[in-house]
């Protein structure tokens, strides 16, 4: 599979070399291609999503594994599973029609009025854009991180927590200790979520605005690797453009491969010890 993609993108690789990654020009008409804007868009949107989703996911995982009664837990877990199973196109659809207007009318003006002095929150409020995409991504990866965090927390021996309680620790202090013990597994879950966010296509394409630019403001439209492939591939005008798009795909594959392998190793290291 890697080989196949390498062959198909070889034309572009030969022509642009390493400059491909660092050039921000993407002009199909002139046959000039550089992927920097897409890489930027992907990385920023994914990391922002992770930043938003991680604390919430950990909270939910704690809530599910430590705090609630078993019957509530099963139904809540079920809901979280469904959240993970909803097709991304529906998230995107919802994002355009519900989230984006809400962002434009409520969230973005609020952020601007409070943090307007920062360059991140200036500029026109379109509704769609980097921030909106990140929020959608955050909603999408929360179930993944939650599920893994929950499993990792479950793998921590009960005796450890009981030992903490026996020393007079409050409930939260006991949980905090469990979290510390599970940290590499939770990190693994986070990285897995990151990998998913990086590769996510449809939902992002629909709300990010699809404009190849690097701007400081989070309100501005941007572009990700996955969405440029989705948008331009089918109607690419010449061989070189297809080749360049496949190279983008190859980079995307490489990044997710590394990210996922890291995540697997981290998760294995925790769950194996507990067995």
């Amino acid at each position, binding site marked *: *599979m890697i080989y196949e*993609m390498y*062959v*198909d993108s070889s034309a572009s690789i030969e022509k642009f070399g390493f400059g491909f990654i660092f050039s921000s020009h993407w002009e199909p008409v002139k046959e000039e291609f550089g992927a920097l804007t897409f890489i930027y868009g992907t990385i920023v949107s994914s990391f922002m999503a992770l930043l938003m989703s991680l*604390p*919430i*996911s*950990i909270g*939910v995982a*704690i*809530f599910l594994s430590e*705090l609630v009664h078993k019957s509530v837990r099963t139904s809540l877990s*079920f*809901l*979280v*599973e*469904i*959240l993970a*199973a*909803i*097709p*991304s*196109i*529906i*998230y*995107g*659809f*919802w994002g355009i029609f519900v989230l984006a207007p809400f962002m434009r009318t409520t969230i973005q003006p609020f952020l601007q009025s409070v943090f307007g002095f920062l360059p991140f929150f200036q500029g026109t409020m379109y509704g769609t854009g980097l921030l909106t995409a990140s929020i959608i991504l955050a*909603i999408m990866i929360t*179930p993944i991180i*939650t599920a893994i965090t929950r499993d990792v927390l479950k793998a921590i021996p009960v005796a450890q927590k009981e030992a903490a309680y026996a020393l*007079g620790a*409050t*409930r*939260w*202090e006991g*949980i905090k200790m469990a979290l510390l013990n599970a940290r590499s597994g939770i990190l693994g879950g986070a990285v*897995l979520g990151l990998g*998913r966010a990086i*590769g*996510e*296509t*449809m939902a992002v394409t*629909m709300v990010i605005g699809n404009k190849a630019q690097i701007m400081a403001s989070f309100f501005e439209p941007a572009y990700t690797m*996955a969405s440029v*492939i*989705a948008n331009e*591939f*089918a109607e690419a005008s010449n061989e070189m453009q297809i080749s360049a*798009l*496949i190279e983008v*795909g190859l980079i*995307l*594959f490489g990044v*997710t*491969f590394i*990210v*996922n*392998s890291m995540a*697997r190793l981290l998760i294995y290291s925790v769950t194996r010890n507990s067995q």
Partner: protein
Amino acid sequence: MTAEKIFKNPKNLKRRKFINSLMIFLCFVAAVLTILPLLYIFIYTTQSGISALNIDFFTQLPKPVGEEGGGMANAIVGSGILIGLGGLIGIPIGIMSGIYIAEYSKSFLAGAIKFTTDVLSGVPSIVVGIFAYGVVVLAMQSFSAIAGGFALGILMIPTVTKITEEMLRLVPHSLREASLALGVSRWKTTVKVVLKTASSGIITGVLLAIARAAGETAPLLFTAFGNSFWQTSIDQPIAALPLQIFVYAISPYEDWHRQAWAGAFVLIFMVFIVNFLVRYVTRNKFG
């Protein structure tokens, strides 16, 4: 300060108790924050979807812009064909690699397959789409249902493999021994005893994979490509439900939006049913 003093200090204890309640409250908030979008998406889609849903949606072809009515019959059939083709590729391969990992877990090859499957499950679906494009579309010189099915099939493999492996591991060892002790060969034991015992679990896994594949859009963009007419021959571009939703959703026409919501509702409903079924079956079987 000695430890005793820390514990006896009432202010300290108060602070600790406060932090305790605060954090637990925050966890609760997080849970609500997560469930809220789900309920919102679900209710919103159901509301918008049901009002747009009618018989025409399932029986009519899409109408040109400006004309009222029409449906997504071709897209629904197209999705069916794509999933069928995908299943033809993905399900046997997935089940077989699942069997191999579970029953021959000590061999090096099994470890390699397991790792590959894990990696494959993390590959973005759009990259799989590019792969299918390179292998099938370029070779056939045309977008086609085969290419789309191929992409969906690859996406199904990791899910099916994982569930097959887990279900086979749940089959008690004593059954394998019973069969082997009767002088039944290893291979026949696996197929006729182990696989048969685990079959209901595996079927749910297959359903899960199908539900996931049915919602996939990205890899279909440049493999199945979409089509606004009836098309059932598999070497031609073909319509698919999620593709149609995508096209309609980003269009500026109010009527198309309604149609897209109806499509979204059908998809979400299917996902819900399948997940519910899976839950029900696995709980019944393995407590």
